[in-house]
């Protein structure tokens, strides 16, 4: 790991690419790598781009990145596509729409397969974003799977979440109304030169108006774009900037970052406790043996869980009636 880390710190893009693989594969030692690079965090801004399939997320991302480059910001993109639940394989095709970025050394794009995670991101999207930030990127863009459902994961991963819709997604707006309102910091009506764009905007405005807001609460703006033509990208960037400023001033940004840290710690603790209970303390074996007893009616899943956590010195404090009865018998 030392060699890789050294090359990473020197700014070797190949080392970054390999470190990302390490994290994606959750190779032993990947947590040390994240620990070692953690000091580099705290400067990048994270933008989430989500929306139904065919909304133009990748094209919009490309144009947004090109604009960031004109502002001299270094940008990384994490584009997620779904893994097949049957074979584990995946086709990652988002780069097709981002070809103008490939040869710019201020840009780094990584395609990630979701690898079983369902909320629109990949299993290790957050860790990968940390690594990219530590490498020195000023902006990290998460592009979600875009399966057409509300992808809530993006809220905790991004400082600003952009929800991209197209005139054709009018129906989607109806069905995901509540979810959309929760996650969007900025709405984009892409392909706004098509018929139906105004209707979509009106529907969004109406829905937004329904939600009561406190005085200084952020009211998501609606930006019209024609991403293939590059139209409306300046306005989108301005809306993202405005949201960023708002979050900064209102303390939301700090709160989000704190929440992200808290979530990470919780995740790690859960993962370690998990490993400890099931592997190191023999929970897996205890479970295996208990299955017959459950079948025979001598135990219940609840009593077995109790026994397993008791083995690591943990008392759930639950009083299970069955336990008493058996003890009494």
């Amino acid at each position, binding site marked *: 790991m030392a060699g890789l880390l050294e090359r990473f710190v020197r700014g070797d893009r190949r080392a970054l690419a390999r470190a990302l693989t390490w994290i994606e594969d959750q190779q032993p030692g990947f947590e040390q790598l994240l620990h070692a690079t953690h000091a580099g965090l705290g400067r990048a801004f994270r933008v989430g781009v989500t929306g139904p399939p*065919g909304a133009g997320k*990748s*094209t919009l991302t490309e144009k947004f990145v090109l604009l960031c480059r004109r502002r001299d910001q270094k940008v990384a993109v994490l584009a997620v*596509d779904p893994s097949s639940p049957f074979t584990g394989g995946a*086709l*990652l*095709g*988002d780069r*097709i*729409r981002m*070809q103008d970025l490939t040869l710019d050394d201020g840009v780094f794009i990584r395609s990630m397969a979701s690898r079983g995670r369902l909320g629109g991101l990949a299993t290790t999207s957050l860790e990968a974003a940390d690594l990219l930030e530590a490498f020195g990127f000023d902006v990290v863009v998460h592009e979600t799977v875009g399966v057409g459902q509300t992808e809530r994961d993006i809220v905790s991963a991004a400082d600003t979440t952009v929800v991209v819709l197209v005139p054709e997604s009018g129906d989607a707006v109806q069905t995901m109304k509540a979810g959309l309102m929760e996650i969007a910091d900025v709405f984009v009506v892409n392909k706004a030169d098509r018929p139906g764009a105004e209707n979509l905007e009106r529907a969004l405005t109406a829905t937004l108006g329904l939600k009561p807001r406190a005085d200084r609460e952020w009211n998501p703006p609606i930006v019209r774009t024609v991403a*293939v*033509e590059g139209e409306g990208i300046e306005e989108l960037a301005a809306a993202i900037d405005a949201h960023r400023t708002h979050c900064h001033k209102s303390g939301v940004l700090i709160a989000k970052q704190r929440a992200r840290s808290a979530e990470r710690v919780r995740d790690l603790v859960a993962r370690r406790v998990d490993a400890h209970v099931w592997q190191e303390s023999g929970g897996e074996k205890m479970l295996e043996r208990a299955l017959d007893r459950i079948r025979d009616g001598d135990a219940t899943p609840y009593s077995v869980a109790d026994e397993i956590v008791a083995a690591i010195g943990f008392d759930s404090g639950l009083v299970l009636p069955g336990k008493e009865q058996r003890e009494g018998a």
Partner: protein
Amino acid sequence: MTPTVRKDRRDDGRPIVQEASTREERMAARVAAWRDRWDRQSKRDIDFTSTSSMEVAPIYTPVDLADNDPVDDIGVPGEYPYTRGVYDSMYRTRLWTMRQFAGFATAEETNERYHFLLDHGQTGLSVAFDLPTLMGYDSDHPMSEGEVGVCGVAIDSLADMETLFRGIPLDQVSTSMTINGPAIIFLALYVAVAEEQGVSPDKLRGTLQTDILKEYIAQKEWLFPPEPHLKIIVDMMAWCADNAPKWHPISISGYHIREAGSTAVQELAFTLADGFTYVEEGIRAGLDVDRFAPRLSFFWNAHNDFFEEVAKYRAARRIWARHMKERYGAKEPRSLLMRFHTQTAGCSLTEQQPENNIVRTAIQALAGVMGGTQSLHTNSMDETYALPTEKAVKIALRTQQVIAYESGVANVIDPLGGSYYVEALTDRMEAEAEAYFRQIEGLGGVVAGIEEGFFQRELASAASRYQEEIDARRRVIVGVNEFIEQDERLEIPILRIDPRYEREQCDRVRELRAKRDDAKYQTAMVRLRQAIQEEQNLMQPVLDAVRSYATVGEIVELMRDEYGTWREPSIF
């Protein structure tokens, strides 16, 4: 459609089929009885499907044609709905044009090949361009490296075009040019060369492919987004209607859709849907449908499944006629005719045992002829390796001649008409194509379908299914997954393009830029840009530009600058 069969029992209790009253009922009863017996037979363990993975019945009978009206649906040749052929007399008056697609290296070499083919009895020319030309790059552009003259001939300017047709009087041959994105430039180049020979545009006969929609769907050689391309195509249709009435400005092509993996029905439906889109664009631009529709022509693939292919051509004629008349209000009979060129399926050729490709090509060519094609290209056996050698090209041409003069199939018009199988298949393909038209309309039309990736997805999944069938040996390909020869030695010579042609061509285009009249060139280019910005018909300004020796790459670059570029949607 359940036939009514009155059943009874004999004295011994066994059921019998009693004499039914009408002929239809008697036939249905016979078919039902046959099916009983057929069900009891053992069958070979393989998929009995067409090349397009379509289930086919073991037999077709009049029962399958119960809904077919032999007068309105089949009719006679040269009469609406033209199922049996577009002309009254077909091949007894004139055989199909034997048109071998050729082009390689430089204009000089290709010109020699044309003279060779004309000397061997070919009756039309067909130009294959190299990839840089098709994509609108000059030979010395960095993207052209390694591709100049490899897949066809490299044409950078009017100078190359003059060489290409040297010694060939353009009022006496018909020429087909397979080019799409830069088609308008090549119409202008051809007109300009003819002009130098003293031949006016109204005498020019031939076809430009020009079909950009199938490029987005299948072959992926576009230059700009769909809208400007469609606008340019309408410009060409309008210009030809006024100036070159014998020229076909567009050949609506299913060939490449099939090559990209589609089924026969998809080829049929997507191609005709493209055709309808061009018609709609023309009408929208204010052209009278009867002014441009007679010059629209088609280009189909001929794959291995003989009957499926014949039915496809017949269905295509009927669908086109019906839509042109009923949907677009065409009044001229000539507007209703689906005339077409056919090429045998390149994707069916195998690298293994390449001589077998001669046989495949012969069967496919026969389908094209039995389907009533107006012209035909037969592939050469060695095309999975490289460009064909002269010997292989000659065998391919001879294949057509054997069909034309020895087989006897050209004696009778639509010889398969009335075959229960072919008529049932024709009806079924028409119905399935109509279902696709409704689906495409639901997506918002062909362009919306392209932007959404609909066609590309349909093709990719059909291609994957076909490959899976071969991999699983449920579909046998001779020499590939059955009857394999180990340690096969390649015994056919391979044509190689000498890299020196690329260097020479690059030198030639650089020299041309240095030597031409710069003032004339600049003026023409400024005029062209202005015409684009003012949305004028581009044919005249492009003609002026090619006459000033502006290169293909320069003209395309200016157009890209004005119209923008286009990127395929991700379909996975």
